[in-house]
């Protein structure tokens, strides 16, 4: 689907990504796992061609099966902040239908019907009525589903999602993950998503690329990377993951210098 060759991105003199190579086959799901400052969002932006004007880019990104892909038509994008990608003054019907009109040459009439079907698929109640409403009338979780509907309206082959669930509560997160999972299976969509949540990566991806501080630490099939992590950072993330199975000691395990894991005395 795409191949990134030795890609480096810098903002002014500040390097954000250095020498990244990575590829993804059609229908596969890749999680880019990392924290703030790991360059994961820069990588997603670079793939969408949405880097800010001041960024210096070296290396290349190729889409062998797509040639020169068009954002919105061939690539759909969802961002962390579901409010940010929706226009507050347009109804959501206009926004979703516009994508289909512009990129698929549909008539407004059929595009609106298409939009209503998508909203229904995303689990938005009363889709026909919802089309006439504005983004602020929906909750955060609903807005993220609407943004997802808009990203999928032109039937893209690649979906890029930058922290699609981290602004949402766990219940909504859970639902969005199930939704994305279903979409990928049904439509044969290729998915690249960026996350800081190791559990999300393991639930939703086939492959994972672990990044830290602008560098790629390791990459491979999810099973392999998480079962036999090669890098101390990956091991530390796994060891300190907080969930309902975390043993209840006086204190929680912390990541120390050089990715060592320690449990402080309480």
């Amino acid at each position, binding site marked *: 689907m795409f191949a990134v060759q030795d890609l480096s991105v810098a903002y002014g003199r500040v390097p954000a990504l250095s020498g990244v190579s990575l590829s993804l086959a059609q229908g596969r799901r890749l999680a880019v796992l990392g*924290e*703030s*400052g790991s360059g994961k969002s820069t990588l997603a932006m670079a793939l969408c061609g949405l880097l800010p004007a001041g960024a210096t880019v070296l290396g290349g990104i190729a889409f062998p099966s797509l040639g020169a892909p068009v954002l919105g038509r061939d690539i759909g994008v969802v961002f962390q902040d579901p409010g940010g990608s929706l226009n507050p003054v347009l109804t959501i019907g206009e926004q979703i239908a516009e994508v289909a009109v512009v990129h698929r040459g549909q008539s407004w009439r059929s595009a609106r019907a298409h939009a209503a079907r998508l909203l229904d698929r995303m689990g938005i109640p009363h889709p026909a009525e919802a089309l006439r409403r504005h983004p602020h*009338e929906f*909750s*955060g*979780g609903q807005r993220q589903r609407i943004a997802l509907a808009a990203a999928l309206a032109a039937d893209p082959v690649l979906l890029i999602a930058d922290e699609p669930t981290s602004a*949402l*509560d*766990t*219940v*909504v*997160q*859970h639902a969005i993950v199930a939704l994305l999972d279903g979409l990928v299976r049904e439509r044969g969509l290729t998915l690249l998503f960026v996350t*800081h*949540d*190791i*559990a*999300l990566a*393991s*639930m939703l991806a086939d492959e994972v690329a672990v990044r830290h501080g602008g560098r790629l630490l390791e990459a491979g099939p*999810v*099973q392999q990377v*998480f*079962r036999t992590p090669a890098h101390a950072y990956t091991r*530390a*993330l*796994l060891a*300190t*993951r*907080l*969930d*309902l*199975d*975390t043993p*209840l000691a*006086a*204190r*929680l*395990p*912390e*990541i120390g210098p050089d990715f060592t894991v320690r449990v*402080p005395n*309480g």
Partner: protein
Amino acid sequence: MAEALLEVRGLHKRFARAGREVAAVDGVDLAIAAGSTVALAGASGCGKSTLARCVMRLIAPDAGTIRFAGTDLLALGGARLRALRPRFQMVFQDPSTAFNPRATVLRALSDPLRVHGLAPPAQWRARALELLDMVRLPASLIDRRPHELSGGQRQRVAIARALATNPDLVVLDEPVSALDVSVRNAVLNLLMDVQDRTGVAYLLISHDLAVVRAIAGTVAIMEAGRIVEHGSVTEVFAHPGTVTTSRLLAAVPRLPLA
């Protein structure tokens, strides 16, 4: 049993939304004993943040009572409310918006001292350094501005600010959900350390039951403005009595590989 530090009774708060009145908090009773941690858990929109902001007197409830340390909080206003503020503090969810972008760490930490006359100006810096040390941040950060700190550092400064007045209660509104996962546990450990040392009580607001389980003793599960289940964390998590609780438990992400 001694009187609770915080006692909320029959609290109601309605908001007008899209022309309709919506009950955000719909008759909530809640008590927190001194030195304990009570979690208020629920999905977004369940009213937990509204309740927290009512307790902090940031918004005014429509009905009900809030007693804090034996005082009727809702009867206070103006100067008398401000005089009580040092005793109940708050840590906000997103540390990137919780600080005046122009104020340095020193100013953020000395504001509570200045406002309440707790220390002469000559001692502000020393006291701020003590607070930084308490939240395990290096002294060199004292003259930085919020945007020059990492998310984890900012949240530690927010905790330090909340502790500056030696409060009896700190409301923690999703204290780790905006932080990188690798610093979350350290911040939670810090909160537990501080509680052991100072005996402060926490009201933890969270949608993540893994966080609740890590630091709270008691949990109240909220849905649609009401508390639907209430009890010790071990009890409620082991035997959830409502669908709301089961759904929240099921939604906690876990590693399928483990």
